[in-house]
């Protein structure tokens, strides 16, 4: 049952994301529903802060619409961009693995719709539904691997230049 909400046949936000996020195609309808049930939908205005560098992270976000800027504060208070996250991509996923402070800040570049997935709820789903948990963990590892490769390549290029 949903609280004060009509149920209907409108496709869910995660179903709409299937084309952009191939991992979602590997999930059954039930598994997709489970992920959907723990997702928190949030809307941000352009320029609005999503989280601050140094804050304790509690989970990761999936960009549904809009764009997110990831940036760090420099020594003299200036900001330098780290990444621009388009729709269909995750950010803040390190917070799922540990309780360390966020390594960068995030803000919305344009009107942005995000789906938030948070550590305690994700951990519950992983424990309660091992098949979905395994698929999710592999996707997370794949995603982190890609990020690592990307930053290594950037570092190599910088060294060559």
């Amino acid at each position, binding site marked *: 049952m949903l609280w004060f909400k009509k149920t209907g046949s409108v496709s869910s936000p995660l179903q709409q994301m299937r084309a952009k996020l191939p991992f979602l195609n590997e999930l059954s309808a039930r598994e997709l529903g489970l992920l959907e049930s723990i997702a928190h939908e949030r809307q941000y205005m352009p320029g609005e802060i999503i989280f601050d560098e140094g804050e*304790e992270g509690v989970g990761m976000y999936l960009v549904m619409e809009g764009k997110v800027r990831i940036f760090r504060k420099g020594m003299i208070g200036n900001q330098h961009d780290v990444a621009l996250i388009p729709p269909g991509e995750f950010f803040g996923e390190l917070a799922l693995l540990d309780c360390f402070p966020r390594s960068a800040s995030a803000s919305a570049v344009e009107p942005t719709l995000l789906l938030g997935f948070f550590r305690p709820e994700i951990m519950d789903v992983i424990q309660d539904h091992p098949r979905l948990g395994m698929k999710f963990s592999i996707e997370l590892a794949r995603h982190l691997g890609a990020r690592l490769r990307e930053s290594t390549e950037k570092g190599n290029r910088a060294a060559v230049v």
Partner: protein
Amino acid sequence: MRSLGNSRSGLDHPLVWSCVIAATLLALLIIRQIWWLAFPFVMSIVFYYISTPWITFFQRRGLSKNGAIWVFLGIVTFLIMLASPFVIAGINESSEVAQKQVPHFVKAAQTGLNEVLHRIQDSNPDLEQLQAAEYIQAQLSDMLGPKFYKDILPGFFDFVMTWVPSFLLTPYIAFFFLRDGFSLKKLVLRGIPNAFFERSLRLFESIDEQLQQYFLGMIALTVLDSVTLAVGLAILGLVTGTFSFGMSLLMGLVCAIFAWVPIVGSVAGCLLVVFVSFVLAPANWFSVFGAVILFLTVRLLDDFFYMPVTIGRSLSVHPLLTVLIILAGGVLGGVPGMLLAMPVLGIFMVIGEMIGEVMMDPRLRARYKQAQRLRKKEASEDLI
């Protein structure tokens, strides 16, 4: 009720504390009007936290959430049905025993009290002049005599009959808490501004965990208290033919439940134990003092051994505030207000802690104001 947590940074601000106390008093005033809903509501929150680990247990064995809830409720219903014949037989037996023994207990209590009062009166000439013992005895005889059967007993049954339907609401509300609790949490979180969202979510999780540990700990503590008290009474030699071990266990349970209400509950529990030991062995002062020492021992065991093991936290509500809130609960909400005073204070402390922690953070407030400015700007962009 014992308090819930230890360090509450959100509650450090005096304004937050004042609001928590004001909200508690207001809620207690309202509870008087809707106690029939407030009581099952609080009970179902307790039931929710006690049953959640079982639901998770079944879910981790492959059942869906709804399936796990139904299996759990099925098992609980089955166990209740299985236990019912024994409980009903026990109640029948106890009522027969009570019918035979209650007049004897009342008579023994009156005789014992009379003896004590006369001893005190004999040693004090002023009291003898006032004939205090005769006066108290006459009042007691009147209260325990026809007045008891005519007014107090039917009143008690009326009270029980009014409360039973209210208690039946508990499993119904608890079922929906179990099934739709997460959707409710999401609904509440949806209303929280973006700036405070992550912090609130973290607090929600930690409070949820604390509450679960607290209620499960309370159940374990109640069982431990009941058994210790029953065994203690048996050691004191008070468990005899008329007062079986089962009855002493029941009395231990009643005292342990009384102890949920701090200070007042403990005093009531102690009086009950002393009264029973006095009635069972009127001439034996060793039993009466033994009962007092037993009760104090149980309380000490409770504070220094059982509570750290089960609940694992020290009290964080000041004893003076505890007493004042319970008394205010009594004045504002009668007996239900007194019983619900601490749980209601606990709920408002949790809310106060959350609001206090997020609202008192200057960075979060600044982010909230920035978001408001951005929204206002967007909404009024095309307006002249």
